[in-house]
């Protein structure tokens, strides 16, 4: 059964088409990543699924309930951890959790023990009775996650869980999410604009660009779809003949997407170990001295470029503006 089904969601803000027909499905119990640069429409999608934003058109079911028609039923089965922390600064960590539990109609000993359990789970037991205004960014984030889990939701939304965290806190957060993911019954939808984060945490990924899902699959599938490896050859002395070098490499069997950039020639090949000797000898024959050769397996970066024709990090920075 699918925990989340999204069909053709559209939403337009004054000048921006935030969702332009977003569709995907998340299976129960999996960690699903919505990957895309800033401004791609990921947060709008998650806010719609969390019943905060009304779509202009399209349908979405979360835990079997329609987000537009039965928002309150959806709210009972989801935990929503927004991009911006929703922690009440003046309250302590424990008080934040207790109130969230009360909102979910929990009370008494079951609530108190659940709160204690969560504080331990996210490693805040020692800070539990301090005001959250004194928490570090990472601690606030972990409290946010605990707040999202108080009522044992079936679906957890994590919107950019590591944005704004330092590398150490990010690594800790990854471990945290992996631990949550190991609980069989919990479905996690996370959004991220970090390719390596999606690669590491998500079992399946949908790449979102300009309000649409451009491709969906496991990170391995997506990368395999690009076939082969990227070979980068650094020419020692191209003397403006880089273009000639491109045509030389082009003739090597299996080489595709050959491009020159300054002193470098890049090509995609099905098998690096076989292709490199051929490329090197072909270049040497024509008098191109080679200073270095590197190969790289395709990253989600390459996947993004392949499916959208656009560079991920450039698009990410533009979305930020």
């Amino acid at each position, binding site marked *: 059964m699918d925990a989340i089904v999204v069909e053709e969601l559209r939403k337009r803000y004054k000048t921006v088409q935030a969702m332009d027909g977003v569709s995907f499905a998340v299976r129960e119990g999996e960690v699903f990543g919505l990957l895309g640069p800033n401004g791609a429409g990921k947060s709008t999608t998650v*806010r719609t699924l*969390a*019943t*905060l*934003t*009304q779509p202009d058109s399209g349908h979405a079911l979360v835990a079997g309930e329609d987000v537009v028609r039965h928002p*309150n039923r959806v*709210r*009972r089965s*989801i935990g*929503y951890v*927004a991009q*911006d*922390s*929703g*922690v*009440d*600064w*003046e*309250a302590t960590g424990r*008080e934040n959790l207790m*109130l*969230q539990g*009360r*909102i*979910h*109609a929990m009370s008494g000993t079951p609530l108190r023990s659940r709160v204690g359990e969560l504080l331990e789970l996210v490693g805040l037991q020692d800070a539990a009775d301090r*005001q959250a205004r004194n928490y570090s960014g990472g601690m606030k984030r972990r409290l946010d996650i605990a*707040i999202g889990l108080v*009522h044992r939701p079936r679906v957890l939304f994590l919107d950019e869980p590591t944005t704004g965290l330092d590398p150490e806190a990010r690594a800790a957060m990854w471990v945290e999410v992996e631990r949550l993911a190991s609980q069989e019954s919990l479905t996690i939808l996370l959004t991220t604009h970090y390719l390596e984060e999606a690669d590491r945490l998500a079992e399946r990924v949908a790449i979102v660009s300009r309000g649409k899902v451009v491709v969906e699959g496991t990170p391995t599938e997506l990368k395999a779809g690009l076939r082969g490896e990227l070979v980068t050859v650094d020419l020692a002395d191209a003397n403006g003949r880089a273009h000639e070098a491109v045509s030389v490499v082009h003739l090597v069997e299996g080489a595709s997407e050959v491009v020159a950039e300054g002193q470098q020639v890049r090509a995609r090949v099905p098998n690096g170990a076989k292709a490199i000797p051929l490329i090197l000898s072909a270049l040497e024959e024509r008098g191109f001295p080679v200073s270095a050769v590197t190969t790289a397996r395709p990253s989600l970066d390459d996947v993004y470029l392949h499916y959208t024709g656009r560079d991920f990090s450039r698009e990410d920075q533009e979305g930020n503006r």
Partner: protein
Amino acid sequence: MQVIRQTGWMVVRQARNLAREPIWIAMMVIQPLVWLLLYGQLFSRVGQLRGGASSYIEFLTPGIVCMNAFFGGSWSGMAMITDLNRHVVDRFLAAPASRFAIVFSQVVRAGITAVLQALLLLVVGLALGVRVHGGVLGWLVVFAATGLLAAAFAGFSHGIALLVRKEASMIATANFIGLPLMFISAILIPTASMPPWIKTLSRFNPVNWGVEASRNAILTGGNWGASGVYLLLLVAATAVTSLFATWCFRSYQRSI
């Protein structure tokens, strides 16, 4: 009744958070006293302002109690802006929290604060020679009037907070409505001394409903029927503004 429980827990949250702000508590205590003592001195020599009271301070006390309540209510929407900015509201909205409870808890909090301040002002007033001529019932009417006055304006203030969502716009709005309503009321001078057109306008001013009820309770010790009508009008105003603020969540949710 989930709405009532949620309202209760949210009132607890706000009260606890405020109790942790020593400066806020100090201001809540000092500010109404400054008004009472400052205005009490400023106008004390103008005999005709007394409106039959034995001293100007006795005349003024019910006015200051109400002024304090309605100012407190008008500004209370700032708390909603803080919660919006810290995304606490979004967190509640994505959970099955009642929109009405989110607003109404703030309205109740504003009412409780105003009642506590009214108690303080009356106790200080007693020391300055003010007598509550309406007895126990008089005290209760003053508390009801101030609590409801603060609540009615808090509902309005939270609606505005959800519409404008910015501190600067909130401050401008509170000032824009606050001072005119204060001067179109019998807070500082008796109704009998007002120009006729202001007298007419003041009848429709919720601030004045609270002032009239409180003044009946403290100075006259009678006119209970009229005071009852004023209190009912304030109950209705609180209901209307609280529902208005709940409705304003739609506008907020359209914006996100």
